[in-house]
């Protein structure tokens, strides 16, 4: 029997006398989660919540101001927790998924360690070097585990470090430049995550991860350009514009090759937003707003029409 989808059932039931009972039976047998998937799901669900809650419990425990606790005990406690977790990961026989989740928990604990260090020596909780230290010291785990959620933590940390660095250390970076930097960094990670599976044939990184990276990168470039349009900053703006044009081009090409509707939606939409911002910069009278609303409808419709045509081609 060919794979039956929910849509098929809906469609067939609309044009037949398929009884409620049979539909229910088909749904339960073919579509709904069965015992095995429930098992897998519940295990993941519980372990994630379990480790998530336990780690946050530990975070709050140390966030509480323990004036009586000597600093060696404080730091020692966290360090031994980290060591125990890593030892479990290294030497126990639990499944790889669970080890990865444990390692993600340990990576968060490294952050706690730095936070407590900052608390003791009064370096501040949002100093960029706190995040920098955290990022550096989990890098090896990230690379070895190659676990998408841990990668997500890592990339988020790098983004945070960069943003804080630009705010706290250097004062003369323009906003456009910061967004250019963030755009490039996230694009680099995206490229690596796409190329990695090609080169080494390793297990594919999940699609939500690369899509999230692409979304972040495209948003950064769009925000940067829109700011640039209104701020009229010269050089960095043109650099960003050039990089964006090149990378968007590559992105569209990749989207067509990988048959990814996602890339082919976010890139055109970002271009539409940029052009609309440019139009407002040209003139902000009533006629222009009216024109923009027509332009958005027209261009989005055009993009959708092309997407539908492409989908038809991909299916056949």
């Amino acid at each position: 029997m060919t794979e039956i989808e929910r849509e098929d059932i809906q469609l067939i039931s609309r044009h037949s006398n398929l009884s409620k009972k049979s539909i229910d039976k088909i749904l339960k047998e073919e579509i709904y989660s069965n015992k095995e998937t429930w098992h897998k799901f519940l295990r993941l669900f519980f372990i994630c919540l379990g480790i998530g809650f336990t780690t946050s419990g530990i975070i709050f425990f140390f966030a509480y101001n323990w004036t009586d606790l000597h600093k060696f005990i404080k730091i020692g406690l966290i360090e031994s927790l980290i060591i125990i977790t890593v030892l479990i990961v290294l030497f126990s026989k639990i499944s790889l998924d669970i080890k990865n989740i444990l390692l993600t928990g340990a990576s968060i604990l490294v952050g706690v360690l730095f936070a407590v260090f900052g608390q003791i020596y009064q370096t501040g909780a949002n100093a960029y070097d706190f995040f920098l230290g955290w990022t550096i010291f989990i890098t090896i785990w990230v690379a070895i585990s190659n676990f998408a959620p841990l990668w997500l933590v890592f990339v988020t940390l790098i983004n945070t470090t960069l943003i804080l660095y630009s705010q706290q250390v250097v004062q003369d970076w323009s906003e456009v430049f910061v967004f250019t930097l963030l755009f490039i960094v996230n694009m680099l990670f995206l490229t690596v995550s796409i190329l990695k599976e090609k080169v080494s044939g390793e297990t594919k990184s999940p699609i939500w991860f690369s899509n999230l990276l692409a979304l972040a990168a495209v948003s950064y470039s769009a925000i940067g350009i829109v700011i640039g349009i209104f701020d009229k900053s010269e050089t960095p703006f043109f650099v960003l514009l050039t990089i964006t044009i090149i990378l968007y081009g590559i992105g569209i090409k990749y989207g067509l090759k990988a048959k990814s509707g996602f890339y082919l939606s976010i890139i055109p939409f970002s271009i539409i937003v940029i052009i609309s911002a440019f139009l407002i910069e040209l003139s902000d009278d009533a006629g222009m707003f009216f024109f923009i609303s027509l332009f958005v409808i027209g261009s989005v419709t055009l993009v959708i029409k092309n997407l539908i045509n492409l989908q038809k081609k991909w299916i056949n």
Partner: protein
Amino acid sequence: MDKLISKKALLDSIRLSEGAKFECNEKAILEEYKKQGENKSSLAIKVLSIFGGFLATLAFLGFLAITGLYNSELGLLIFGIGFIVSAIWLNKKYDKLIIDTFSISIYVSGFTLFAFGLLEMNFDENIIILLICIIAISSLIITQNFILSFISILTISACLLTLIISNDLHDLIHLYITVSTLLLTYLFLNEAKIISFSKKLSKLYNPIRIGLIISLLFGLIIIGKRHLTPISQNNIWLSSIVIILVIIYLIYTIVKINEIEAIKNKVLVYSLSSLILLSTLFSPAISGAIVIILLSFLVNYKTGLAIGIISITYFISQYYYDLTFTLLTKSIILFTSGIMFLLLYLFTTKKAKHNEKI
């Protein structure tokens, strides 16, 4: 076309298992498949048309604000009604994906103009909201286009919430959450009944499903984020009652699917889950997100599952952020819940191993 052939095979296999009493209009089915092939929508396309529609609406409202056209109440009203009617008519006449962006923008602008027109005419706010609600419901009856129905559902729930908030009846939010939880559960658990009930309902099923999830989320956000509205924190458990009952019912279903039969195991599952649920008594937002996750996984609905997971993460962080306990108490609560989940994890793993042995 390969696809049509495989669909035909699918139909044949159903015919085989159903026997002689099965009748279907094969021509209509294949015809609709063909039409669907030309109009196949993906999540990307839906999101794109919604975002595009809203962006265009914003620009259009900007245009109105600058020209000062909003000074003529009658003009606003006429244009508003005109827009809404054309959006519904367009969708009724041409059920095609490519007009979605356009119809969303005139539908949403239509509602905005309509509301502004009536407001300028000094109509009572409640009456305006009720009128919008009625229009949205009628549009559901007239056209079953995915996007328009989805927006109509959101409009209806936004109207209800506005009614509650603008009349200072904040505690009614619990009723809103209770009703949307029950509706959502009914919708998910009775899929077969609903889609076989009538053609219209079958087409409305998907937009209502996602619409109700978002509507429930609206309500959960309002009670999940403290100080967003002045609801009494002492009554917050009111929303939890039905949510917890629903979860227990779902656990009962899941236990059945997973064929947990030994009394000892059942007791363990129910008592651990009850302990966890009790700890969420004062945070219905968290248990509400659990309802979304369990229901979505039960019927294998991926978008819902993703929404549920993102929202539970948000609600949990928001809850602990808002808690007024000392950090130490928070830490103990979190740690204990963590251990409870780890126990459940061990239980499921042990159970799995046990099954493998058999």
